[in-house]
């Protein structure tokens, strides 16, 4: 009789699936931050002098800055001196081949469902796997290199392509941009670098999986993607972290640069550990992501599905500098239990005839608090520019909240900005209708929520869309009925 109810309970009690810990000896700094730690990180990575200087300058900026208090989120003060800023899996020598990778690490990736091997080539995905702070192995690099595409870890890029890194690093998100970006600029340990030369269309989706493993480790990765004139690339980023009862800080910086006629599509499925049902533990995801449409007719598109993290604070933005450039932001943000999200975008129209589209879907369940915060800015010279924004919120239950903070500033007379917003509650009628057709409450909620997010899922690459739908289901378990 009650097998159904039992199944729901079991489903709801299912634990965070990726909450395993890999037992590998780490090569870490002691907790805390000072100039010596930064010198240590830089030396460890055999960085050139200019980069060390850049880090130190960022650090000195950071010391003078204050942690932002304007987001609509609440958390106890972060003790920045209690964080370990560098942790690398220990290894003997530089890895030449994937077979040299620590088998324990490879098993971790397998649990995460990321096969690093050749099958990936067939699947059309090249993976740059970041484990804690060091990139472990980069596949298909050679195949990509034949096309002139550089896809490697950030540290390797610093060593092998210092001029490119120096040219573009901090060119979109300056080191003193904001508190967390400054911190990242001082201590970033690794990340991904991607360069698509003039006229090249990257033939596969590029993908990076990040994973925070060591306890008390902050992860500060840095991603830099440059698409030269006429180049095109689609980049996927997926994240999970093991379960811990302490909070962990994740302060990443992502910079995208699109030159004339270039296109960059950046998709994220973020599933960092959200904390338990009482709100203990979980990742603080304080991330700065920004793209620069530097050239004419360029296009940058952000798609994000955020189901994880205790707190999410991020605003993937686009600077529309080149005439006729296009910026897009498609977002699904889910909060359940005690999760908090303050997320949205900034579209800064600088060039003429620039266009931007914002589609934001916020889903709140449990005691979750979800805020959309967006700024659409049209400068004086951005004549004939257009923006369309749509912010929809869906509430599950009566203890959660949805908030919308749209800011629109238009400084010329020929541009147009449209904003639409809706808030709806998942209807008892909808759930009953689904149940009357034989679906369980959980399936009904999943289906209704997925329908609500459809416009955003459409923007995701196929395999990511499937993963995103599953994630939504997992993160909303037990939130209704």
């Amino acid at each position: 009789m009650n097998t159904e109810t039992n199944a729901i309970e079991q489903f709801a009690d299912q634990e965070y699936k990726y909450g395993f810990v890999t037992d590998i000896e780490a090569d870490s700094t002691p907790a805390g931050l000072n100039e010596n730690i930064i010198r240590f990180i830089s030396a460890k990575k055999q960085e050139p002098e200019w980069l060390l200087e850049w880090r130190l300058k960022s650090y000195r900026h950071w010391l003078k800055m204050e942690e932002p208090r304007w987001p609509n989120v609440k958390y106890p003060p972060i003790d920045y001196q209690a964080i370990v800023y560098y942790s690398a899996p220990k290894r003997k020598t530089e890895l030449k081949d994937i077979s040299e990778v620590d088998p324990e690490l490879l098993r971790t990736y397998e649990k995460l469902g990321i096969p690093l091997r050749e099958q990936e080539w067939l699947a059309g995905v090249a993976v740059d796997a970041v484990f804690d702070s060091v990139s472990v192995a980069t596949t298909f690099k050679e195949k990509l290199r034949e096309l002139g595409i550089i896809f490697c870890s950030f540290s390797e890029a610093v060593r092998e392509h210092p001029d490119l890194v120096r040219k573009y690093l901090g060119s979109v998100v300056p080191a003193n941009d904001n508190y967390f970006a400054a911190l990242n600029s001082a201590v970033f340990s690794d990340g991904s670098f991607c360069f698509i030369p003039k006229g090249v269309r990257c033939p596969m989706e590029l993908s990076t999986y990040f994973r925070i493993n060591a306890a008390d480790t902050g992860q500060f990765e840095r991603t830099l993607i440059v698409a030269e004139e006429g180049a095109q690339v689609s980049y996927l980023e997926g994240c999970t972290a093991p379960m811990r009862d302490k909070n962990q800080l994740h302060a990443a910086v992502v910079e995208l640069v699109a030159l004339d006629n270039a296109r960059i599509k950046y998709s994220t499925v973020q599933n960092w550990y959200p904390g338990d049902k009482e709100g203990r533990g979980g990742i603080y995801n304080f991330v700065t992501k920004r793209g620069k449409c530097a050239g004419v007719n360029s296009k940058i598109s952000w798609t994000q599905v955020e189901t994880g993290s205790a707190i999410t604070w991020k605003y993937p933005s686009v600077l529309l500098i080149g005439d006729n450039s296009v910026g897009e932001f498609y977002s699904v943000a889910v909060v359940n239990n005690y999760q908090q999200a303050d997320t949205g975008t900034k579209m800064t129209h600088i060039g003429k005839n620039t266009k931007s589209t914002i589609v934001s879907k916020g889903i709140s369940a449990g005691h979750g608090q979800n805020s959309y915060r967006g700024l659409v800015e049209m400068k004086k010279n951005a004549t004939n520019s257009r923006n369309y924004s749509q912010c929809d919120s869906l509430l599950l239950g009566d203890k959660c909240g949805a908030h919308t903070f749209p800011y629109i500033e238009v400084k010329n007379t020929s541009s147009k900005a449209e904003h639409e917003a809706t808030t709806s509650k998942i209807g008892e009628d909808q759930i009953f209708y689904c149940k009357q057709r034989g679906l369980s409450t959980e399936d009904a909620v999943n289906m209704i929520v997925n329908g609500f997010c459809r416009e955003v899922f459409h923007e995701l690459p196929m395999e990511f869309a499937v993963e995103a739908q599953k994630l939504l289901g997992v993160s909303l378990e037990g939130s209704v009925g």
Partner: protein
Amino acid sequence: MSLLEVKNLHASVNGNEILHGINLTVNIGEVHAIMGPNGSGKSTLAGVLAGREAYIVTEGQVLYQGKDLLEMDPEERAREGLFLAFQYPVEIPGVNNSYFLKAALNAIRKHKGLEELDAIDFLSLLKQKTKLVDMNESFLNRPVNEGFSGGEKKRNEIFHMAVLEPKLSILDETDSGLDIDALKTVSEGVNKLRSKENATIIVTHYQRLLNYIVPDFVHVLVDGIIVKSGGKDLAIKLEELGYDWVREETVHAV
């Protein structure tokens, strides 16, 4: 064993008793019409049978295939073959009609211990069923009921019924809001689905639907109680004389 046995059913909404002791037996292969004026409790009866939470059963029993129906969750009732065609079908934005039906059908099949249908088999089944209820295939890829006209929604309900092949279908005011052409199409669909293997309860205010779907039995529900039962002729008499006739007759009988 009867398919459905309703015994002395009392039900309340927000503390007000709406049904005051319904008795009804439906056997497999039969079509029953439940007629009654507005507010007589017809939709409440349909809702109680489907398991709407707002309706509280205070007394009585309902056996479905010999099992206690009132103990089952709504989805379990559905999986056991009980289908409600809604008076007001609900919109589910962004959820593709055929995707929805596939999930529903597979939930039912799984419950029966049958293998789930794959995409290809399901699609051919769908196409076959669209012909049965004369529905345009474009409805398959539209979100469930979203932007459908009143008539399209009702037709979609019958389409769901065709795909899910229930044992007991309850059509709640399926004729309301339909013009004469839509009424004909919907009725034809229901008639095609009618068989020795299933049963139907038609809940309606007007007799006109029963011109197209001819019932085996007609029950008249007034003020939460079935005051008169008979064959299909009862519906015609009711149409001629109105519900007051039954009311008066009941009063005289008392």
